[in-house]
């Protein structure tokens, strides 16, 4: 019996994905399904361990109609999506700066990678308690407060700018500070993407007499579109699943401080559904603009 080529190809493709699929089922789907079952129960710690009885949709109903914080926090976290275009533009610019050849590039690249190293977990906690708070509090140090908004607002006050403008500039500056610390991963992804653009595309453009701006908009940006969509998706996920996020904290506290696993599971499922809807919209809109490389 001879298997047709296209069927064979389907089987090959499936074989490539198979290891991941096994891992997905064993290490994600099964734990996730168990966690979903908790959501329909009121789990309590008894002497024999965790015990729960089936309570139907009551956890979900409570979260949507009676919990005063959850829905409000969800809506306010949606507002953060506005910063994503900023993150993308900023990280493309930074990646372009890192790509060229110049003295000190290795150092600069290493510095740009710092947010990835520090930005997660324990190190960030230590930084928040020991470093960032310190810099703002210990006044007299000029260089330290330059980037915390206090130093600059003093300067603007001395210049006689109106309060509202100062407040606006302050929020912008603190946003920029946030931005640099949130775009480590994106910068590295864009850098790898930039390196993957074949150099002959640029050589051809040089021969045709294109200038730098034309090269950026006609070559770099179109060939970077797969990376842009990847980065947008990652930024959305990162924004919603970062441990500093209030809802993640709320879920964590409900589960491990108040020991209400059932309710915490219900909250996380609702939250998950919300992120899924946001991601689906973002992906479907952006995927139209992806340009497949034919160079």
């Amino acid at each position, binding site marked *: 019996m001879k298997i047709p080529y296209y069927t064979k190809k*389907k089987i090959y493709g499936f074989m490539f994905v198979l*290891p991941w699929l096994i891992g997905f089922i064993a290490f994600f789907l099964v734990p996730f399904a168990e966690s979903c079952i908790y959501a329909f129960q009121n789990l309590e710690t008894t002497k024999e361990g965790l015990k729960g009885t089936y309570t139907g949709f009551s956890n979900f109903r409570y979260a949507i109609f009676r919990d005063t914080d959850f829905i409000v926090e969800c809506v306010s976290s949606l507002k953060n999506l506005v910063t994503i275009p900023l993150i993308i533009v900023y990280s493309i610019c930074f990646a372009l*700066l890192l790509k060229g050849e110049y003295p000190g590039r290795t150092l600069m690249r290493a510095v740009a990678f*710092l947010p990835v190293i*520090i930005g997660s977990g*324990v*190190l960030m906690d230590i930084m928040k308690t020991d*470093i960032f708070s310190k810099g703002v509090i210990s006044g007299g140090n000029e260089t330290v407060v330059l980037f915390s908004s206090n130093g600059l607002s003093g300067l603007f006050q001395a210049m006689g700018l109106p309060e509202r403008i100062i407040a606006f500039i302050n929020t912008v500056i603190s946003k920029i500070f946030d931005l640099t610390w949130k775009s480590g991963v994106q910068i590295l992804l864009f850098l790898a993407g930039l390196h*993957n653009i074949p150099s002959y595309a640029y050589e051809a453009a040089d021969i045709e007499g294109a200038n730098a701006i034309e090269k950026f908009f006609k070559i770099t940006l179109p060939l970077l579109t797969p990376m842009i969509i990847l980065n947008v998706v990652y930024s959305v996920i990162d924004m919603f699943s970062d441990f500093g996020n209030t809802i*993640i904290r709320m879920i964590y506290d409900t589960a491990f401080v108040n020991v209400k696993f059932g309710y915490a599971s219900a909250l996380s499922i609702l939250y998950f559904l919300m992120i899924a809807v946001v991601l689906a919209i973002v992906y479907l809109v952006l995927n139209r603009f992806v340009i497949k490389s034919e160079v």
Partner: protein
Amino acid sequence: MRQGKKIFWTICKYSILILLAYQLLYPVLYMISGSIKAPTDSYDPSVIWIPKHYSLVGYIDAFKSMKYISALFGSLLIGLGCSVFDIISCALAGYGFARYNFPFKRLLFVCVIATLVVPTQTIILPYYLNMRYFNMFGLFSVLSKITGKDLSANLVGSNIAFYLPSIFGAGIRSGLYVYIFKQFFSGMSGALEEAAYVDGCGPLKTFLHIMLPNAKNAIVTVFLFSFVWHFDDYYITKQLLGTKRRTLIVALSSLRVDLAALIGGQTTTDPIRIQTRILAGCLLAILPMFILYVIAQKQMADSIEHIGIK
């Protein structure tokens, strides 16, 4: 005129770079300055960045109380092992998603993204139990019904608990690596594969000999992310390592408590003396990742020149 313009742009570029570098380096500079300060300098208001009296006692104490060598060894074993396994499994999956069509492909790719969206905290409890009473995807429990013995293994505390999810592409943020590989492979030209197929290469051979060497940038990127995230991880690592062994980050998280035991009770009431040691500990924990990054990013740059010559 042209020369002047060039100089102007170079100055612009460097001033932006210096500004960005300062902002990103600020915490590290603070750590360095804070960790080498002698206690007397901490109370001296004229000392801002550069201390007048140096002392390395912070490093020595942090080194001892973190049990640095064994913790580093633990971290490296987990970080390097997991990142290598992640590269293999995720590159395979990414290639499958990028180049082949098979039933339910879109649904499965949605699942890849879903693994990223669900926060680890929500599945950590069943995940831990899965590792504590590991039964090889239900295989052991079938076997134990036959033999009548309980065959489920306790993986908590061994490195296998970290490697196993990575081997099957389910390590920390593996979904992202699959996505990265997919984007890279689908950006590559199909001509090489067609040529390989005409020359009689099977799919696995094509993947290993043609596609993988050309995806060096993706490999380096995934390696860096996977290494750093496994190295940096606290929640999963703490659960799965058990109580006997520690990684650098787990050691760092309990440094404050451990220091009190090492240098006596009076220092815990003195926040500045304890802080120098904690900052030293932070630097010691960052250092391996930093060195690795500097080595690995060179690979990323080189690979491109190589392809350019081809």
